[in-house]
């Protein structure tokens, strides 16, 4: 990307922007959890609250880039993806969103709410039997959220909530790896593995766990409180490489 002195300059520019911003600094909040954990509902409530507080908020969802999402969608429709292809395409979608949606918003001092972040890739790919170290490297240079809210539910609750309204689709139910024909049975087995992966990630990456078996309002007020406690956290130096690489790509100077 950039030469060594140029890279040093870009790193300094990144540090300056996030540690001594002209206004509010960009702040990244990730919502994570298995399907049926209620995180999308909470994300919407949370966003509405932040906006009512006068904050500038943008949302980004998993597998939503205009560039890569259609590619993934067409291949999912014909059930043609191996775990490696599934993982690589989602990492490509994520990378494109980081560069075109997440970084520009953070640079402009906005609050970015990610409805699923790279941990979704790690949990699902891990449950598909891929080596987590390999998967994590796909997402380099890593961009760490300021806060990660993990919505914890049991496999039974997740399965009950998901199947109450629909039949889980092929990849959602992990039928590509469970070899089970029954989508509900497959979903239960797969989500059990996904939750196990999430629980390990929650410890390693210090997620803030929300008991998603609580009522909606209890969760929402807890989120408000946790956000207020966490919003003054210092910017993580771990993110300097990701920001510098993005700066070198965009040619931004300030």
């Amino acid at each position, binding site marked *: *990307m*950039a030469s060594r002195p140029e890279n040093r300059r870009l790193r300094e520019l990144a540090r300056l922007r996030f540690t001594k911003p002209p206004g509010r600094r960009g702040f990244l909040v990730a919502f994570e959890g298995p399907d049926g954990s209620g995180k999308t509902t909470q994300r919407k409530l949370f966003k509405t609250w932040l906006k009512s507080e006068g904050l500038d908020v943008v949302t980004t969802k998993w597998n939503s*880039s*205009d*560039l*890569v999402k*259609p*590619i993934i969608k*067409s*291949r999912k429709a014909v059930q043609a993806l*191996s775990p*490696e*292809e599934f993982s*690589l*395409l989602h*990492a*490509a979608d994520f*990378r*494109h969103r980081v*560069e*075109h949606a997440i970084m520009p918003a953070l640079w402009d001092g906005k609050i970015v709410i990610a409805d699923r972040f790279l941990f979704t890739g790690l949990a699902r790919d891990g449950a598909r039997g891929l080596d987590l170290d*390999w998967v994590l*490297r*796909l997402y*380099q240079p890593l961009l760490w959220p300021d806060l990660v809210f993990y919505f914890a539910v049991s496999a039974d609750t997740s399965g009950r909530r998901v199947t109450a309204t629909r039949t889980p689709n092929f990849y959602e139910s992990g039928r590509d790896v469970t070899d089970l024909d029954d989508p509900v049975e497959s979903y239960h087995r797969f989500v059990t593995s996904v939750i196990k992966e999430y629980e390990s990630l929650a410890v390693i990456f210090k997620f803030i766990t929300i008991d998603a078996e609580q009522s909606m309002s209890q969760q929402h007020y807890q989120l408000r409180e946790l956000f207020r406690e966490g919003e003054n956290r210092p910017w993580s130096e771990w993110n300097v490489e990701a920001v510098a690489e993005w700066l*070198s*790509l*965009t*040619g*931004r100077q300030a």
Partner: protein
Amino acid sequence: MAVADRKASVTMPRGTLIAVDGIDAAEVVAAARARIAAAARPRRAGVSLWDASGVFDDLVVAGPDAGIPSARTLLLLYAADLAFRLRWEIKPAVIEGRVIAAAPYVATAVAFGRAAGLPTAWLKELFRFAPRPAQACYVDCSSARSGFIGFGCNQLSQHANGFSARDTVARARTHLQAAARRTRF
């Protein structure tokens, strides 16, 4: 067009995987077909081409509003396409005892990534899933009129950071030449 060969340890059973890399797809494929024609049983041999999965074809369909992909995004997509080729073309051919030429294979993607300034460690790790070929050829082409390198360099030149497609192609060629020397292609 200069083609040099390298023998490497065989890591896949029975059949033979030959990697053919270079910056221009047309020349690389021609070289791969020449290798196949010279094989002991050419009818039991084939060529695996870039974008067999159609990922890059689909990428072209996306409008300019979708955003220009970076080198990392392009390489993740290249790796996804290679995973598809390995699953449907390369591994089955090797298991059936056929000769298969992957044109291009990993070295082309790594050269592109190096030309774009990406860390070697990340590139190596990205393609860790790809088995080592039994043989490898490097085709020295003067331009990248077709294929991944030409496509990728054109994409990079549309970013605001001043990447020139011609310079990036030249750097990719240099990286491939260096890789060929290092591994005695």
